[in-house]
């Protein structure tokens, strides 16, 4: 089996609002898959459907070869989940929660548990109500990472962690990848996604708008070019794929769709190039373009 998660045409409606509107998602076995989208895009709803907590209204969902709603109990032995906002039982200590959740899932690795407690610098004796937000996240992370499971579903797992702990988290996920585990990681932290993810899916308004490796996604966007030419540029503005052209005498600045680079460069060399600087799109630009609100979209397409 090569797909740990396959979702197609997933629909989940709350009354008249459609939280998920035909969402597709494929996570291959053994990969770390980034799950991105603006707030309210439907990331958590998708994850809760995958966990069998919500019932899908339409579409097909397969998780580890089973149906996440019908086979919930057996599937859950093979996965672990960390929500973005962990709530603990106020009177149970962190250590008790880690052990309880591990045992329910069929046991956890005591060496790994001790190792993780040390690396995340968590005091397991504190009561649930005494932990800060970041420490509650650590409790859930340790419970998940110390379990011997095939699939980790992490929904903004590092919210509230300090940068040092963020680094520990990234190390741990890298180790999971080496072990051959599959990870679905919903995150807003672009550096985290860039460092960890093999492939990403970007969703907006309950639909998948982009899926692929980061390299593939970069191809879909624009490169910024600044050049100093030997003679005045001719016909640059008329070329397809050129945007935001600014001409200052012999200097030009513009963005170009990456698949139109060839034609544009040919045009530049005809005019004679004295200097040239090009910048590939940053991840930020990539995401911001996809995160832009629907209203901006609507205005642009008019």
């Amino acid at each position: 089996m090569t797909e740990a998660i396959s979702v197609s045409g997933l629909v989940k409606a709350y009354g008249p609002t459609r939280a998920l509107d035909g969402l597709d998602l494929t996570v291959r076995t053994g990969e770390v898959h980034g799950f991105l989208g603006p707030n309210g895009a439907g990331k958590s709803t998708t994850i809760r459907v995958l966990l069998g907590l919500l019932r899908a209204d339409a579409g097909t969902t397969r998780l580890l070869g089973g149906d996440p709603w019908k086979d919930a109990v057996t599937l859950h032995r093979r996965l672990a989940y960390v929500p973005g906002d962990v709530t603990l039982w106020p009177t149970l200590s962190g250590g008790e929660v880690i052990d309880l959740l591990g045992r329910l899932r069929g046991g956890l690795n005591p060496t790994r548990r001790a190792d993780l407690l040390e690396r995340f610098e968590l005091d397991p004796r504190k009561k649930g109500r005494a932990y800060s937000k970041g420490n509650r996240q650590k409790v859930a992370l340790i419970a998940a990472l110390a379990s011997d499971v095939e699939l980790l579903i992490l929904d903004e797992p590092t919210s509230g962690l300090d940068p040092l702990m963020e680094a520990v988290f990234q190390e741990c996920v890298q180790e999971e990848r080496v072990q051959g585990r599959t990870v679905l990681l919903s995150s807003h932290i672009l550096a985290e996604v860039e460092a960890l993810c093999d492939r990403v899916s970007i969703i907006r308004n309950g639909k998948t708008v982009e899926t692929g490796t980061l390299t593939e996604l970069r191809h879909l966007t624009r490169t910024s070019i600044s050049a100093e030419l030997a003679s005045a540029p001719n016909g640059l503005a008329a070329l397809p794929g050129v945007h935001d052209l600014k001409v200052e005498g012999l200097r030009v600045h513009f963005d170009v769709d990456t698949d139109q680079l060839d034609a544009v460069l040919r045009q530049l060399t005809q005019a004679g190039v004295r200097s040239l600087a090009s910048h590939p799109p940053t991840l930020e630009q990539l995401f911001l373009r996809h995160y832009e609100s629907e209203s901006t979209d609507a205005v642009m397409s008019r």
Partner: protein
Amino acid sequence: MSSGFVGTGALVRLGLRRDRIMLPAWIAGVVVLAVGSAAAAADLYPTVESRVSAATAANNTTALLALYGRVYDPTSLGGISMVKTGGIGAVLIALLSIIVVVRHTRAEEESGRLELVGATVVGRYAALTAALIIAVATNVVLALLTAVSIAGAGLPTAGSYAFGAAWGGVGIAFAAIAAVTAQLSSTARGATSLGSIVLGVVYVLRAVGDTAGPDGPSWMSWLSPIGWGQQFRPYAGDRWWVLLITFAFAVVVIGGAYALVERRDVGAGLIADRLGPATAPAGLRSPFALAWRLQRGSLFGWLAAFAGLGLVLGNIAGNVGGFVDSPSAREMVAKLGGQQGLTDAFISAEMGIMGFVAAIYGIQAALRLRGEEAGQRAEPLLVASVSRTRWVMSHLVVALGGSALLLVAAGLTAGLSHGAQSGDMGRFGPVFVTAVLQLPAVWVLTGIVVLAFGAAPRLVVAGWVALVVFLMLGQLGPLLELDQWAMDLSPFTHIPRFPVGDVDPVPLVWLVLIAVALVAAGLVAFRRRDITT
């Protein structure tokens, strides 16, 4: 100092917005209770003689004195007709005040919402002040509505205003008490429990005072806010000056609450948290083990209370017959419970009340399901290979088994103390059986909660609504001479009046089957729905 109150007005408006259903519903419920008793009074006690004989009988019955208090003017219509309602209503109003104050102070703080609000321009004392304003205003409205309604139903006007004011005073006293308990405990549950324990203690204090003979500790009634409500003596002198004691008490206690707010951090209680174990005990490996861990503390507290109540009831049951000598007195006691055999009628009636109280336990233990779900503490279990049925059953075992334990405990202590007091240990069996017989009706209420939880999780208050309806049917139905079909709606109507009559197992079996059907329907619905918050 004055900046500490900034934002109080906004919080009052927010609180009233949140309580716009709950407060009117509670107020309406209590007022209906009062009007029901007032309206029935003229028919029940048409003549002065009928009142005097009923009041004398009640005043000579230790158990009734302990439960409801004394009738201070046997000739007045208001005195005899409102004595029972006055006691029950005072408890309901005290609970309402505790809930309102804790809900807007400690509960908000525990959930972190107060922090969100507190970071805006809101003073340190604003939340407590807003909660107290809401609670006091609620009690004033309740007092006025009660007074106007029962006067309208035919009771003397001056006494009716005194009656309303006495109730309002009890409510305000308990708002003050809750203001303190909300500072002491770091959880809303703890603050409410602490307030309820105080309520239980002061109810017992006045029971001891009211039952004391001329040389006994009758002054103990004066140690109790509930006692002050009764010493107000509506319809028997209307001693308005007693209200000053209540107000003085409230001012001092509220002052204490503000002093406590000054001394502690947001989120903390005065009782500091200790560290827990670094690893879970070997037994903590199933959803049931967790449910037991979460609920056992509360169950132990309830068990102690039931055992204690059983002890008291068993002990006073034997005295009931001795004090009553007139035929009309017997009729009075019969109206308050059974048909014949005063001790048996008393045991039957009081165990019926214990059944209601056990149902309160069953409801709140089953409501833990919704609390855990809404608090997002069900999710970690449900995604850790625990089936939905298994998770529901884990808390349900505590609710059903716990309520059974409560009645067994009360039956044991009541049977033993009654046997010892009467010198006939053969009495143990009937008393014990009477207690345990209540269980099927208790389970039906738990079943209603499970059904609501599964089918309409936002409407789980249905359990409480059902309890109040059944309570009113049971307490007021005979007085209002309701039709039998209406009385039959309450599961408690179908519990055999043992030891007065025989035990007919058929209705008991039906009640258990209904409880099972309710639970099964709730489970089926829960397995088909989304987990919501």
